[in-house]
């Protein structure tokens, strides 16, 4: 953590992001081009799932990033409440819509995978349901952080919510799993079975790395904007 604390100063963060963002944008674009080639053209269709396996190259990384994004929100929340880092609040404000966006991508691509594979756009599968609840937690965080006239209050309320949410996520996951086994026999095709063939794994990890870079890029851009916006609000209050 000590290494990350130096970024807590908004001015220093700004210098850091200005140095990183241009090369990060180029890297993301290049990796995306290669990733799309790997995912859509180069990789073979799966023997069970056919071409729909290509949806997984977007779907699975989005799910990882949506979950990691909520963990990030909780970490930023803790950092705001414990150390009162001003940047943590701004970054949480910036990261929540990005995480929600990846969560939405995960849900919608999963639904488009489910139609040909399960015969329905939506089934009340345990994983889908807990992902949907994660999306609701994101919506709550976004709505709460923007619900106050004083932005500081929204930031701190949302930080508390993120911490409680991260405690609750495993409980929600566990109860939805239980609920699912109670109501529905598990007859669900899993991704590639127990072991994933390298021809599938390579594009999957490549796309995961690409989308991770995109996530970082979006969060940096939006945090930068939030810093400016806060300066603007302060100037308006003084005026």
């Amino acid at each position, binding site marked *: 953590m000590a290494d990350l604390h130096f970024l807590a100063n908004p001015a220093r963060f700004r210098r850091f992001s200005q140095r990183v963002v241009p090369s990060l944008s180029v890297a993301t674009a290049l990796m995306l081009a290669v990733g799309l080639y790997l995912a859509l053209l180069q990789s073979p269709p799966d023997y069970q799932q056919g071409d729909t396996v290509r949806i997984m190259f977007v779907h699975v990384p989005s799910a990882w990033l949506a979950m990691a994004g909520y963990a990030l929100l909780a970490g930023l929340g803790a950092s705001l409440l414990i150390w009162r880092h001003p940047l943590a609040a701004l970054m949480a404000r910036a990261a929540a819509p990005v995480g929600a966006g990846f969560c939405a991508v995960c849900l919608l691509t999963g639904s488009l995978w489910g139609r040909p594979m399960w015969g329905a756009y939506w089934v009340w599968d345990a994983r889908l349901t807990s992902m949907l609840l994660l999306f609701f937690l994101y919506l*709550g965080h976004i709505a709460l952080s923007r*619900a*106050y006239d004083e932005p500081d209050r*929204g930031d701190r309320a949302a930080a*508390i919510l993120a911490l*409680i949410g991260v405690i609750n996520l495993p*409980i*929600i996951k566990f109860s939805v799993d239980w609920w699912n086994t109670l109501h529905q026999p598990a007859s669900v095709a899993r991704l590639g079975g127990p072991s994933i063939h390298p021809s599938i794994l390579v594009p999957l990890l490549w796309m995961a790395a690409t989308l991770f870079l995109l996530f970082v890029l979006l969060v940096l851009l939006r945090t930068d904007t939030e810093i400016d916006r806060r300066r603007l609000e302060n100037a308006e209050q003084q005026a």
Partner: protein
Amino acid sequence: MSGFVALVARDLRLVWRRPGDVAVVLAFFVVATTLFPLGIGPEANVLARIAAGVLWCAALFAALLSLDRLFAADFEDGTLDLLLLAPWPLELAALAKCCAHWIVTGLPLAVLAPLLGVAFGLEPAVLLALSATLLVGTPTLSLIGGLAAALTLGARKSGALLALLALPLCVPTLIFGAGAVEALATGGDFRAHIAVLAALALVALATTPWAIAAALRQAGE
């Protein structure tokens, strides 16, 4: 401890002077539950099948409906500032508020639910189970709802926001509450469900008072 009892007693006295507030919540519970047979149709076996889920969902909504005033009145008239200054922990005050809320909503809901269950054609043993699950489960709803109420204190559109925050967090309680009743009706493991429901209540008891107190402190700043 005496402060805790005094605060619960004070909240109960306030409710006693305006019993209409509780009556409205209970009336909502009855009316909302009655709408389901009207929407779904009067087939007895369908109604008995969905009864537990419907009653639990309606109880959840009813509990949330009464929450947005939980701290708001104290916030507006300055009681909250006194609680913040009081020499005893704010966590205890938060717990007392949730406790009072449970006594005036969770408890009546648990008593009322079996009566409505009769209209859904539930067996007597299942009615008893329904009441038991609500008794064990509604404290969790009061605590989580209390947290949502504290977080939305002074926010714009706090009522709808409160529901958006509290409902996803209440999902485990709903699953195990309705699941317990269904387990009893279909020969599943009722006691395991009740045990998990109690565990959820204990987890909520161990975590939410601190979060509520933190939320109230930053509301009072």
